[in-house]
């Protein structure tokens, strides 16, 4: 390649320090929060750990999904960006680790985010007996639940490592053989993903509101995951370009990333609305509990999340020029990224503390939301995520060397 491209990304020490500072902020927030959280079993603290654990895991998993999708659909324009997604999905094991910690602690009754983990609810003699949860027992029994967790982890990590290995191999040997292997294997991954993306959303999120059910839920969580992935990837590419990397990535590539941000935001809005509208319209007691919970304590938050995640991308990203203006795209991206974090907050928190948060150092007082604590935790995990992603990014060529679609990707123009 005769490009004056900076081919290897070097992690600047300044960025490294910043990431560490963010993580320290997170740790401090977590430590203070632990003492301030006066809810039973520090429920709110654990809920926030779950939100952050899942959110960044989802961003990483979404990257693996998008990466596989590029191969399965024979996409060329994104060929130059594949290392970005590889770096993002390298966070999967860490993200999964955080979730497993939360789940394990639930299993050992350190917290009660998951009501169904309490064995009393299955005991007909006990006053805590819950007929509906008892009916779900075959699915929610500990061995089956943990088997699923193990399978998700094994499958995601297996494919993530395999793809990364092949990708680095391709840089050495070239040719098309690896490319076709990718094509086949990514289709296989997508099959697993199609099922697991739904079931893991049921297992880890939907089961918080354990009486409630919605067939749409898995796809709705998936769309939120995907849009967060696309935003993070876009922001990362823009940031790298600003530092003089990825010189062959042109406006058209950014435009396409912006289109994905826009399109998946609309997909999310569509799924959110359909789920809400159908439940609202039928008004069946079994189903409305979910929105009732949110209406009672989080009405403003719920609608704010919907409007930010729908209206902001819709109006801000519709125009062609908007998706080619790096600064503008970054600003909009940051807003929706936080918007989708808040969406996950809305999915988790109402079912865990039911609007009754006791908070404060010393004497606790009643509130629904803190501010510095949630932000601090988010920032801490963001630091960890950035550090992991950039760390992986610096370990290999920034642009693959011998991808068969590289030529087409470099000539990308729309």
């Amino acid at each position, binding site marked *: 390649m005769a490009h004056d491209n900076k081919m290897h990304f070097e992690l600047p020490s300044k960025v490294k320090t910043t990431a560490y500072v963010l993580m320290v902020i997170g740790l401090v927030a977590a430590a203070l929060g632990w003492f301030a959280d006066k809810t039973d079993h520090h429920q709110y603290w654990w809920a926030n750990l779950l939100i952050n654990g899942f959110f960044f895991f989802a961003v990483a998993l979404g990257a693996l999904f998008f990466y596989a999708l590029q191969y399965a659909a*024979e996409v*060329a324009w994104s060929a130059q960006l594949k290392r970005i997604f590889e770096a993002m999905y390298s966070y999967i094991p860490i993200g999964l680790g955080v979730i497993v910690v939360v789940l394990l602690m639930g299993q050992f009754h350190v917290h009660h985010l998951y009501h169904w983990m309490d064995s009393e609810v299955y005991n007909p003699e006990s006053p805590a007996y819950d*007929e*509906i949860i008892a*009916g*779900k027992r075959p*699915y929610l029994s500990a061995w089956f639940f943990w088997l699923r967790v193990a399978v998700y982890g094994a499958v995601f990590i297996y494919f993530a490592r395999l793809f990364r290995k092949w990708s680095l191999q391709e840089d050495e040997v070239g040719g*098309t053989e690896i*490319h076709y292997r990718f094509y086949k294997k990514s289709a296989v991954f997508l*099959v697993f993903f*199609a*099922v697991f993306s*739904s079931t893991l959303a*049921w297992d880890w999120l939907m089961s918080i509101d354990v*009486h409630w*059910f*919605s*067939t*749409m*839920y*898995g*796809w709705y969580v998936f769309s939120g995951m995907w849009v967060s992935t696309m935003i993070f990837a876009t922001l990362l590419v823009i940031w790298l370009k600003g530092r003089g990397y990825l010189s062959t990535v042109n406006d058209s590539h950014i435009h396409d990333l912006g*289109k994905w941000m826009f399109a998946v935001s*609309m997909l999310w809005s*569509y*799924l959110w609305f*359909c*789920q809400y509208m*159908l*439940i609202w*319209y*039928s008004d*069946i007691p*079994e189903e409305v509990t979910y929105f009732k919970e949110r209406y009672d304590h989080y009405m403003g938050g719920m609608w704010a999340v919907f409007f930010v995640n729908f209206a902001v991308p819709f109006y801000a990203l519709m125009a062609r020029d908007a998706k080619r203006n790096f600064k503008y795209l970054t600003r909009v991206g940051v807003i929706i990224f936080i918007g989708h974090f808040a969406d996950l907050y809305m999915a988790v928190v109402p079912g865990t503390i039911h609007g009754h948060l006791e908070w404060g150092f010393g004497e606790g007082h009643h509130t629904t939301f803190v501010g510095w604590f949630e932000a601090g935790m988010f920032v801490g995990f963001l630091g960890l995520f950035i550090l992991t992603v950039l760390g992986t990014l610096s370990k290999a060529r920034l642009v693959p060397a011998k991808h*068969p*679609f590289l*030529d*087409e990707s470099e*000539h990308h*123009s*729309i």
Partner: protein
Amino acid sequence: MIKEASIRQPLILGHKTYHDITNDIVSPIEGKAPKQWKIAITIAAIIALYGIGNIMYLVANGIGSWGLNKTVGWAWDITNFVWWVGIGHAGTLISAVLLLFRQRWRMAINRSAEAMTIFAVIMAALFPVFHMGRVWLAYWTLPLPNQFGSLWPNFNSALMWDVFAISTYFSVSLVFWYIGLIPDFATIRDRMVKPRWKKFYSILSFGWSGRAKHWTRFEEVSLVLAGIATPLVFSVHSIVSMDFATSVIPGWHATIFPPYFVSGAIFSGFAMVLTLLLIMRKTMRLEAYIHMKHIEYMNIVIIVTGSIVGVAYLTELFISWYSGVEYESYAFINRFSGPYSWSYWMMMTCNVISPQLFWFKKIRTSLVATFILSIVVNIGMWFERFVIIVTSIHRDYTPGAWGEFHPSTIDIGMFIGTIGIFFTLFLLFARYFPVLALNELKTILKVSGESYKKEDNKKH
């Protein structure tokens, strides 16, 4: 400067020039109608007439001539409606969504798929319209005040949404299709020798001259229409699904319905496109433009959408149990083990299992297998709607009201009739309209044409 990777297969085979493309597609229109076409259209027209006869009988005698009863108040009519609307989804998907995804292979199939869309939507609309009984009062669905007072149609009703959705979808698809046709009609106009036909195509072509500014606008309009039509495609079948999902009937009320219906619609639509195109490419000798790679791509779309539908079936089944709601679970147990279980297993086999055969490259690149499976999928998708509609309502909350549905000859006759009308319209299209988008194919010739690609590869 756009470049296509050398490992991509060419989309236009052989050594074609711009003139060859025009020739290959326009000459069948200029020539005399082949005998096979005459035979085919005669058969289709007879079936169509039979259908029209059935419709006339229905209008004269009322909805009682269908097999509906007080428990099963919706059955074949609405099944057929949803089936046809579903088929009508592939066309706009191919022309709009695949345009946004810059899938060049769509250019060989979009024109006929869009035509299919339009005809399928017309067929679909027949069913609810005639279900009204007094069809001459169909305009009551429009927001006009009732002449006896200020009553308006109910905008809270999913049926009312459907009126807006279907009419918007139909008219926008028609406009999208026609705007693409205008330049191609101009090509035919400029070649036609017979004065009467020249006049005919001259009117159809709206005086298109191919000016630079007009082409710029043409491309912008196509892109924006595609951008608008994409959410439209999603919304239309979502709204169709809401006819069921907004209700409180177990088996109908599921939040997954909108996206799952959309996926099912694309699935059946692609199957129908394949059925039609496999015949068309053969009889009209379009093998250079619609070749194995196109068919393979379409089969992959079928695997993807079929699998999404499969995941949705299983999700519904699982959640019906997980919900712990007795009625919800029963609706599904009744589906797979009740009196209509045969239709449920038919649906599962045709829609979930059969498309998985396309994972084998041998099967998805076999014309015969593709043709058979495309028909199997269409049968399966008809049964899907039948299963959803009939099995959910034939057993009411009170067992005293349980019933079954048996189609009458009018039900069957009207359904078969719509197939006849559909094929009549499609055959007329294939005879008099350019079946491939000429001007669009010309834009990809140098990028994806076989001979051009070969030359380009030699340079490297």
